[in-house]
């Protein structure tokens, strides 16, 4: 098996020969620059292959972090992975139904972004967004309750996995790529209101071939909007590898006149640096910029996809064992002497206990009441005088007008 793995990497390298230097995606390649024994900020240096750029300079490799911030990030990543695993388990118990897209393996992107931005900055993303909701203000109970369709859910149990919003997170969106124009609109609003905030419009490598993504690029560049288009490239769309679906898989180069940066999306520190850099870029009036995170998901596209029909199990296990973002951060923390292995284990156990408790609390919450079906559709004060829809009681052919329910 080891020889097979070696052979496979050999092939992968041969395929990327046109690019003289490839982005490295190891999760633990950052080196310590200062003494990190106490909680004052210290400098670290990212691996020199952490970024690549197109039509702009790469971000600098120096980053300042603190012990507390790294431990907080570790805790968040551990909690989010546990939460996603709990969602997976609940789905396999048939307690969560319908759509459910998990981000196990991509924690570095969400946690790194959330830790480099302020709540005023906008993040809008697609349907793989459970981590963002939790990192931007929702509770774990609220998110799991939403997945379970319970009253305690952040959309009161009526939205589900694809419709999670918080005050500082503009939503998971179910239509592939449709959030990108919305993100451009948010950026337009920020510019119009002269607010110094950045908007991160996120999409995956699958959605990157949508026409509306390119339309948004065009308008953003035309009007110099403070928008960062973030391609979360986890190498596979729904059952198709990026190479099979995109003529150009260097997603950071696809913005025509818009500059782009490619970033190692498995190292949370590299993500933080890239986000800080792009935020400075757009807030200083340089117009839009593309940001591609090269990352990997361990599970299938959704719960209906076993995730092993278009890639080998060996590949997934290799990424798990060598590129895992949480294990990478754990290695930083232990090697730099910030915390011991026991303390890290303790954090892991606490994360598991917290999520288990949240699962039980969410399961105890009741299902939404039937008469609340017609509420929370419009913003308060903007409701029309009647709403149209279907109800399960209308079984009769005789009263032909029951299909238009007037309230």
């Amino acid at each position: 098996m080891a020889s097979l793995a070696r052979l496979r990497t050999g092939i992968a390298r041969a395929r990327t020969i046109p690019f003289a230097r490839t982005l490295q995606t190891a999760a633990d390649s950052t080196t310590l620059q200062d003494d990190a024994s106490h909680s004052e900020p210290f400098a670290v240096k990212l691996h020199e292959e952490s970024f690549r750029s197109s039509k702009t300079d790469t971000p600098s490799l120096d980053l300042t972090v603190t012990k507390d911030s790294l431990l907080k990030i570790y805790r968040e990543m551990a909690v989010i992975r546990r939460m996603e695993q709990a969602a997976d388990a609940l789905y396999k118990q048939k307690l969560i139904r319908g759509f459910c897209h998990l981000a196990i393996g991509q924690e570095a992107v969400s946690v790194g972004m959330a830790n480099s931005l302020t709540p005023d900055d906008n993040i809008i993303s697609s349907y793989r967004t459970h981590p963002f909701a939790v990192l931007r203000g929702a509770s774990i109970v609220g998110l799991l309750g939403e997945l379970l369709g319970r009253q305690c859910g952040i959309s009161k149990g009526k939205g589900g996995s694809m419709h999670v919003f918080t005050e500082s997170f503009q939503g998971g969106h179910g239509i592939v790529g449709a959030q990108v124009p919305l993100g451009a609109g948010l950026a337009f609003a920020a510019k119009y209101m002269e607010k110094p905030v950045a908007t991160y419009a996120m999409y995956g490598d699958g959605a990157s071939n949508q026409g509306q993504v390119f339309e948004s690029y065009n308008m953003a560049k035309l009007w110099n909007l403070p928008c960062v288009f973030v391609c979360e490239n986890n190498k596979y769309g729904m059952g198709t590898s990026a190479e099979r679906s995109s003529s150009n898989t260097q997603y950071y180069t696809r913005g025509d006149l818009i500059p782009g940066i490619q970033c190692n999306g498995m190292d949370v520190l590299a993500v933080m640096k890239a986000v800080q850099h792009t935020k400075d870029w757009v807030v200083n009036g340089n117009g839009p910029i593309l940001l591609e995170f090269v990352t990997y998901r361990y599970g299938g596209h959704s719960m209906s996809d076993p995730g092993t029909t278009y890639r080998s199990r060996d590949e997934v296990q290799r990424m798990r064992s060598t590129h895992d973002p949480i294990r990478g951060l754990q290695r930083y923390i232990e090697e730099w002497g910030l915390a011991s292995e026991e303390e890290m284990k303790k954090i892991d156990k606490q994360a598991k206990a917290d999520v288990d408790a949240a699962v039980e609390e969410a399961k105890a919450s009741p299902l939404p009441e039937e008469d609340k079906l017609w509420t929370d559709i419009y913003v308060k004060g903007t409701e029309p005088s009647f709403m149209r829809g279907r109800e399960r009681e209308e079984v009769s052919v005789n009263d032909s007008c029951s299909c238009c329910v007037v309230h």
Partner: protein
Amino acid sequence: MISRRVAGRRDCWPIPSSLRSTLISASPRPSSLSSASMQSLRLLCKTAAASGTSRRWLQTSAVRLAVSNFQMPAMSPTMTEGNIASWKKKEGEAFSAGDVLLEIETDKATIDVEAQDEGIMGKILAPDGTKGIPIGKTIALLAEEGDDISNLEPPKEDTPPPPKQEASSSTPSPPQSVPDKQDAQPSSPPPVRPSMHPESSRPLFPSVLRLLQENGIENADKIKGTGVRGMLTKGDVLTHLGKASGPMGTYKETPSDVVTKSGGDQTKPPKKEEPRLLDGAAVRQLIVRNMLEASVKARTPPAAPPADFDSVIADYLPPAKAPSPRAEASLAKPSKPAAGYLEGLI
């Protein structure tokens, strides 16, 4: 991985980390811990704990024995039960996240079940080849590294599998609301419904099936079918119920004023009152009538005068010449080529 913590499984002694590490390093792989060695280890722990000097051995951060139930997972939204093809991990074997624990056969495919977390296979409750295991049933016990797995016992099935719970909680509500609706209806058919399926030797249209169900007709063979190859139509059912004069007739029971009004429009000339409210049938009739008229008109073109050279060439001549000599030739122009052009298309 389906994991539910078993409460109250803390009766075993925590194993000192130093001991555990020596044991693990002595054996080639942690997975090959035999139950015998675990027993001896437990003994050691007990004696150590009994003596007063052992306090410092015991970890202060209590090692919790995390034995979790591994339940039959639903690998697809439609799966209700599955068979175990084979276990890929033996009892006592360690696994890491992403390893295949077992293969499950469902109604559609054979699927590998991966571990979400690292741990040790504690006890397999449903061996290879077990058939028809419902979702949610515990099929194995998983332990964490360092747990005593020698005397694991299958947990009592105190909670029923979750899908049943959900079904029982969601079903009571619709029947409550459905009868209210039914009572309001003018014709009160017997309340036996959607579950009842009418018997018939012939295939039935969905619309007919629904009509039969709503009117509680159980044996559809009693009704004579007048449709194609004797198929039952809605008209047949309505005739059988006495609600229509014949299978091709109109539905008699029309208490709502909308239907009567539009029914009147249907017989009167509907062309003149086009902006008025028309029902579906009237609109369809109107469309069909107009199409028929257009079609008939197109198929019988007005007799055109015989084509002579001048009338043919007239189209290609400059318009200056047209007014003076060939008034009647240009008159015949529009109808004839149009008819010829459209011929065969309509």
